[in-house]
């Protein structure tokens, strides 16, 4: 804890917060100097977002004080925070899709003539000044729904700046961005810093803290662990402080000679809803005992490819062969029966039914098979026995959760259940799409080692991920998809990040 001083843009001292009987923040101190980029690091559920929500007035602390520039501040709701120069960019963007960029920026803080009649021209001038000052290129007339995620984030930042924010809170800002957009974000953050703004970035991504922040506060399970200078730390030391134990950032993987080809796609073409061919003449071969990583930026045909494998989308041409049998243009049940299992990117939408119990989610694919149902009646004992097994094997917490709604589990634990369920199918091929999305370091480590184990047992894994690091780290073979085609294929040891990054962005290998 530091003394109260004008040098600090934000000081939060002794912050304690209860949600019901649970203490989610326990006497936390946070001191952030003016003009700095400060990271708040912690696992999911550590309390970092709650802490920032208190600063932004969405929750009130039960104990503790907030000082802005050395003055005690009372922040009861977001408009208090806004009027005292605090702006926040939420992880899930708070933008109205059907509105234009300009309408979103002025909403709630409109420039008006008489009787609340809007004066958009005047507002536009003000916004254009800000855009010019920080070099952010955004088309004010465009509707939000037509913008990329990176652009939408810029709009959120503009919203805060338009309200005169001096302190900008960014909640998991890189979670949804492509690598290029991340770099652009860091540029914007730097130009804001040059102008004397203070930036707080909430994250659990270590690489990005090293890249962008100067100081960092680490929180674990609601407690303050440390406040450090980022330059004095390594990714490894930050990770250990965050998780509270030794952790491997990179998976140990023995070399292994893969077996025969068990899954093959031959010259596959698939069209998307709008009738555009988004998978073009694509071929790949996956062998048993191999992790095959498919790298690519979102929207390059991965979705349609996946839907087609799953039998949810018609293949116009080509073959999908699993264990020697053609499975294209059949149905989902046939695909699953041919020993393919899926871990979907969006576990909330496809992976589980959030309002059903953990146990019911565990037998979701097998409920109609023996022993889970006999003559059309469910056997709850068998279901619970099976669920208990998954919970124990995959260390799902809380351990007595099998009759709770799966909604109440953390993302990491939900994902463990999904993975456990799928692996229990004993598949020959596991297709894992973004299996670690939204998970924290500890859970990521677990998921990665599970995939490697599976491969060591001689199974095949198709890993589709937007996180290039994950692909590079795990895959035995790496393919890059761009515009619906495989534009390059490498063995793990013959690839490098630059080359693959370039291919992902549509560059040629020889450039």
């Amino acid at each position, binding site marked *: 804890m530091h003394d109260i001083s004008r040098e600090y843009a934000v000081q939060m001292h002794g912050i304690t917060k209860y949600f019901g009987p649970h203490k989610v923040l326990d006497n936390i101190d946070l001191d952030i100097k003016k003009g700095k980029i400060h990271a708040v690091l912690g696992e999911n559920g550590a309390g970092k977002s709650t802490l920032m929500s208190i600063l*932004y007035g*969405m929750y009130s602390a039960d104990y503790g004080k907030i000082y802005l520039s050395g003055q005690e501040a009372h922040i009861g*709701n*977001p*408009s*208090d925070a*806004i009027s005292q120069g605090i702006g*926040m960019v*939420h992880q899930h963007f*708070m*933008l*109205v*899709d*059907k*509105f234009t960029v300009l*309408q*979103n920026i*002025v*909403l*709630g*803080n*409109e420039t*008006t003539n008489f*009787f*609340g*009649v*809007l004066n958009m021209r005047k507002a536009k001038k003000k916004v254009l000044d800000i855009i010019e000052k920080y070099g952010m290129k955004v088309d004010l007339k465009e509707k939000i729904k037509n913008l990329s995620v990176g652009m939408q984030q810029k709009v959120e930042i503009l*919203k805060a700046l338009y309200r005169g924010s001096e302190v900008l809170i960014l909640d998991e800002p890189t979670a949804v961005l492509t690598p290029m957009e991340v770099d652009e974000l860091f540029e914007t953050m730097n130009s804001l810093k040059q102008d004397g703004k203070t930036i707080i970035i909430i994250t659990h991504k270590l690489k990005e803290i090293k890249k962008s922040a100067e100081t960092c506060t680490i929180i674990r399970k609601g407690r303050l662990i440390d406040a450090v200078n980022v330059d004095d730390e390594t990714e490894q030391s930050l990770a250990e402080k965050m998780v509270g134990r030794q952790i491997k950032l990179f998976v140990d993987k023995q070399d292994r000679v893969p077996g025969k080809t068990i899954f093959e796609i031959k010259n596959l073409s698939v069209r998307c809803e709008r009738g555009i061919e988004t998978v073009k003449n694509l071929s790949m071969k996956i062998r048993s005992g191999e992790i095959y990583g498919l790298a690519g930026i979102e929207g390059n045909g991965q979705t349609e490819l996946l839907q087609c494998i799953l039998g949810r989308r018609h293949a116009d041409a080509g073959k999908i062969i699993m264990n020697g049998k053609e499975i294209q243009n059949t149905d989902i049940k046939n695909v699953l029966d041919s020993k393919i299992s899926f871990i979907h990117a969006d576990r909330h939408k496809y992976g589980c039914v959030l309002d059903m119990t953990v146990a019911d989610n565990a037998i979701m694919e097998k409920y109609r098979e023996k022993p889970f149902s006999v003559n059309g009646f469910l056997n709850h004992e068998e279901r619970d026995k099976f669920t208990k097994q998954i919970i124990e094997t995959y260390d799902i917490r809380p351990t007595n959760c099998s009759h709770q709604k799966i909604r109440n589990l953390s993302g990491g634990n939900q994902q463990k259940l999904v993975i456990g369920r799928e692996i229990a199918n004993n598949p020959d091929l596991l297709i894992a799409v973004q299996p670690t999305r939204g998970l924290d370091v500890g859970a990521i480590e677990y998921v990665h080692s599970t995939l490697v184990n599976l491969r060591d047992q001689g199974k095949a894994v198709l890993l589709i991920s937007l996180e290039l690091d994950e692909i590079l780290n795990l895959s035995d073979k790496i393919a890059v998809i761009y515009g619906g085609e495989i534009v390059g294929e490498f063995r793990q040891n013959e690839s490098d990040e630059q080359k693959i990054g370039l291919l992902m962005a549509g560059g040629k290998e020889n450039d």
Partner: protein
Amino acid sequence: MLNSLLIALSITLMYSAPLTLAAIGGVISERSGVVNIGIEGMMSLGALTGAVVGYFSHSAWLGLMCAGLAGGALALLHAIASISFRADQTVSGIAINLIGPGFAMFLSRYFFEGASVTYPVPEKLPKFINFSYLKGTPFANFNIDVSVVLAFMVVVVTWFVLYKTKWGLRIRALGEHPAAVDTLGVSVYRSRYACVIISGILAGIGGGTVTLAVISQFNPMAISGQGFIALAAVIFGKWKPWGAYAACLLFGFSQALVVMLGDGTVRIPSTILSMIPYVLTIFILIIFVGRSSAPRASGVPYEKGAR
């Protein structure tokens, strides 16, 4: 020919006025994110209140004001249930639709010695245009109720507020993404309350114009589906004031057809004829419900911090 046209126009406008008022109320409520299927009930209570106050006070204008207040009071109930207590808005709306006509009937029997029909009001709302002195010309049958003008003005004002003022910008945002509005420091609850109550006031006035301008008394059939037709107009009109207005004119015209074709020149049973507005409503809903895009957050109770 000119004669029939003018009569058709008069009737169309007359019947579309109550629908328009109610539908604009629906537009305002739904754009703020609260589905108001209780419009029918609010219209019923408004119709009764208008007739009762109009009868006892001898003032149609006072009756109309009280009709609005009655609708607003019923809407307050809907707001409390669906905004503060986050009840299912459809269920709450259905409750309103049961309470409204039932309570109206009760009051009618209470004030008029057990009769379900009130005495005619001594004075209806004035005509805005009345050519009855031009006897012998086709224009004699052409007249425009003041409620028609009122409805038109409500459309204009609502359009202006929704699209040209900061309040409108906020209302439209509320229906799409309430959390965005909340995080910018505007109270979602207070704004939605205001919109739902205004919606009820307009529905109440709409009901009042039925008993104070169209017919001159309340009876159990005075409001029979107009609220639902108004809701259909909201959807058909794509949640826009002018769109809803156009839809109401169409429905008003179908009502005029019932009257015009019912004069005996066409040999169709009147029971079949009176189905026209309802059948038209169903057809329009079948064709348009799937295609039109409702405000995204409409019907979803807002809960702070919900994922």
